């Protein structure tokens, strides 16, 4: 057993941190929060830098100009995304790319995945629906055969970066009942309307209504021809586990950063003539935060390793998600308590991490869903 990283992995982490420290300040994160149009311009500038660094292509094949690296490496970068509050458009694009990667034919890889990996277009994923969070087998959006190829109708909810994404991966039920994914290019698709959400981290997000959206037959992401409906669903769950574990790493990075600056705050802030960090009650809070983050870090990297090397590790992903959500919530709640008034004013910055932590908790599936998966395995 060896839990240490290679030199390459350490260097990647350092490089990611260095680039983000230089290119994405708290002030930038604040603009995204305060003003969407300026925020989107800032996010586009950052995306250009991230594209240049090759991070969009880390986990994708060389056939689409990716680096042929591992999901593990991408996870290292996502942890830094969490530390620096990188705009959601980057992770939305990578999420779309991961789904396409799992289901696309060679032609579709060239057409859809290539531009995402090269930073030429942005993407997002639309799987959730009214009444559907993670049980994709219950998808209600329908896809009918039409003259163009397919016609899709239905409602999708909480689609991150919905209005700016050039390509949206949409799940729908085919006429014979089987679940399928479609790559829906914005330029082709009429019949989509957007209802923006206002969600906790103020990141762009919208419910979308697809009303008879006409798609060419080549938009259907069929996966391997041998896959039956059961396998297809399994592959979708596996692919979404990859997205989930990356977002868990992002949550972890945010919790680690918040804990670091809270530890510094209580060591410096004085009351009653001494740093408040000398008080036992404060130290006990800090210790519980440390332990929550420590266990979440181990569980996230274990799940990331398993998903990266074995492809499927639902139990490990659910455990990591549970511990990461717990840590992110505990750290931000205690951090607010320990910062007092300075933790809640918008002049400070703690709230930016708190908002993101809760948004990520929501975007990684409900705790109940994940605990159910754990219970299924534990009580099998």
């Amino acid at each position, binding site marked *: 057993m060896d839990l240490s990283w290679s030199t390459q992995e350490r260097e990647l982490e350092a490089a990611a941190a260095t680039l983000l420290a230089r290119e994405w300040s708290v002030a930038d994160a604040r603009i995204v929060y305060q003003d969407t149009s300026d925020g989107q311009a800032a996010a586009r500038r950052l995306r250009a830098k991230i594209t240049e660094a090759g991070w969009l292509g880390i986990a994708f094949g060389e056939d689409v100009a990716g680096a042929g690296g591992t999901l593990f490496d991408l996870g290292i970068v996502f942890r830094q995304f969490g530390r620096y509050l990188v705009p959601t458009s980057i992770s939305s694009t990578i999420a779309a790319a991961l789904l396409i990667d799992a289901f696309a034919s060679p032609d579709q890889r060239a057409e859809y995945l290539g531009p995402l990996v090269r930073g030429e277009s942005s993407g997002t994923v639309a799987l959730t629906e009214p009444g559907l969070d993670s049980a994709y087998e219950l998808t209600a959006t329908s896809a009918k055969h039409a003259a163009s190829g397919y016609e899709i109708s239905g409602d999708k909810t909480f689609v991150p970066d919905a209005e700016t994404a050039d390509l949206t991966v949409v799940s729908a039920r085919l006429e014979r009942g089987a679940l399928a994914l479609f790559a829906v290019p914005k330029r082709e698709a009429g019949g989509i309307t957007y209802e923006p959400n206002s969600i906790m981290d103020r990141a762009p997000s919208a419910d979308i209504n697809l009303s008879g959206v006409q798609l060419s037959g080549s938009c259907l992401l069929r996966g391997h021809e041998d896959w039956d409906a059961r396998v297809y669903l399994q592959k979708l769950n596996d692919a979404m586990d990859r997205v989930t574990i990356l977002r868990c790493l992002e949550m972890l990075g945010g919790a680690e950063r918040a804990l670091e600056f809270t530890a510094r705050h209580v060591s410096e802030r004085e009351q009653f003539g001494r740093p408040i960090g000398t008080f*036992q009650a404060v130290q006990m809070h800090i*210790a519980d935060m440390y332990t929550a983050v420590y*266990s979440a870090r181990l569980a996230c990297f274990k799940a990331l390793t398993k998903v990266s090397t074995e492809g499927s590790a639902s139990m490990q992903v659910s455990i990591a998600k549970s511990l990461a959500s717990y840590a992110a919530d505990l750290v931000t709640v205690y951090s607010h308590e320990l910062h007092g008034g300075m933790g809640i004013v918008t002049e400070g910055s703690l709230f930016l991490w708190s908002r993101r932590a809760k948004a990520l908790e929501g975007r990684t599936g409900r705790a109940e869903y994940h605990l*159910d998966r754990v219970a299924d395995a534990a009580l099998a």
Partner: protein
Amino acid sequence: MRREDCCPMVGGTLSAVARGVRYARCRELECTVDWDYTPEDQQWRAEVRKFLDENLTEALQRENVEIGFSTGPETKKLIRKLADMGWNALTWPAEYGGKNVGAVKRLIFVEEWTYAQAPAITYVEITNAAIAPVIIKYGTPENKADWLEPVRRGDVIFALGYSEPQAGTDLAGLTTRAVLDGEEWVINGQKIWNSAAHVATHEWLAVRTGPSGDRHGGISVIAVPIDAPGVEVHEIKTWHGHRTNQTFFTDVRVPRRNLIGEPGGGWQYLAYALDFERITLGGSLGHVRRMLDDLKAHVKVTRLDGSFLADQAAVRRSIAELEVRLEAAKLMALDVAVRIDKGETPTPQGTALKVYSSELRSDIARYGMSILGIAGVRDQYDELAPLGGILEHEYRANPVARFGGGTNDVMREIVAQRGLGLPRGIRRLKVATEGE
């Protein structure tokens, strides 16, 4: 990808990477973190299991149920067998007759032993795996000659003589004193919570040999035979059936050479031993896994209020939460062991593990008893107690896990100070940890 594209990522070229050299990865450089036990570790686990299967006889278990940890004939046989196999000296260097195994293998050993609910482990483990390493690291040549072989043979078992009525968590307040008289130390004072004193052969006794003003520097450790004249052991009963003791020392005389290491070095030795003890306590996850496994097996076959417990949503949630937390504890234990094997002293991590796993134990008892309802409060002596009363017993025994080896309240301060650099408190926090 061409080979040379990879080079910027390889070895000492951080600045180039940081300047914005594109991410590039050689295909053969897959991720290198390995979360699985090696085949060698797994083989070791199987070996320990086999030993336990063969040696945990009914007679042995009965002897221990009837009289607690015992020096009865069955227990003595077991300890002798451990000695013959070298398992009393697992972590010791080969030159002292040890097996020289690392922390990961020791973790596996403790895990399996506690999972099997095998008796005798705690005291024997503490002597072998917490005290013996102190003698090996700090002992004089005489100390090594006097104690290591008898410990290895199972002929010497130490009771930890640390706490006193006025010196518990604030151990440096201890007042039991040893005064040199010619070639002998003369000891006067008393110890409390002296758990193994009625079954051990010797006290691992923390005493004051220096001036009382020197709280930490004046402490020494002396090995004291419990059958020496002037030693009196008085039983203290506890609500979970565990026997502990108050022990009095009146003009007890022991040879000068029984002082371990250097006079005044005691604080450092206690700290070193306590670090090991905490890791043993925190790493006793086999017991936790056993409780959860037994609970899972029980809810699958037990119907209550119209359905199997395992099909009830609230029960499933409780079980899943415990499963998640047990995995967290196991990962921390493994990480701590791996760090020790690399030569680190992972004090904040090991301390966090001790707090976390001791509190997980109490939650398994709490959630479990809640799931079982009124049947859950049958105590371990009721032969119809579900899970053989293991959860009920844990509920009563658990406070010891929370304060033993350093109370969790102070452990949290250590985590905050060592783990995240928080300032020291009002009092000088010198609760035994290494590296003070």
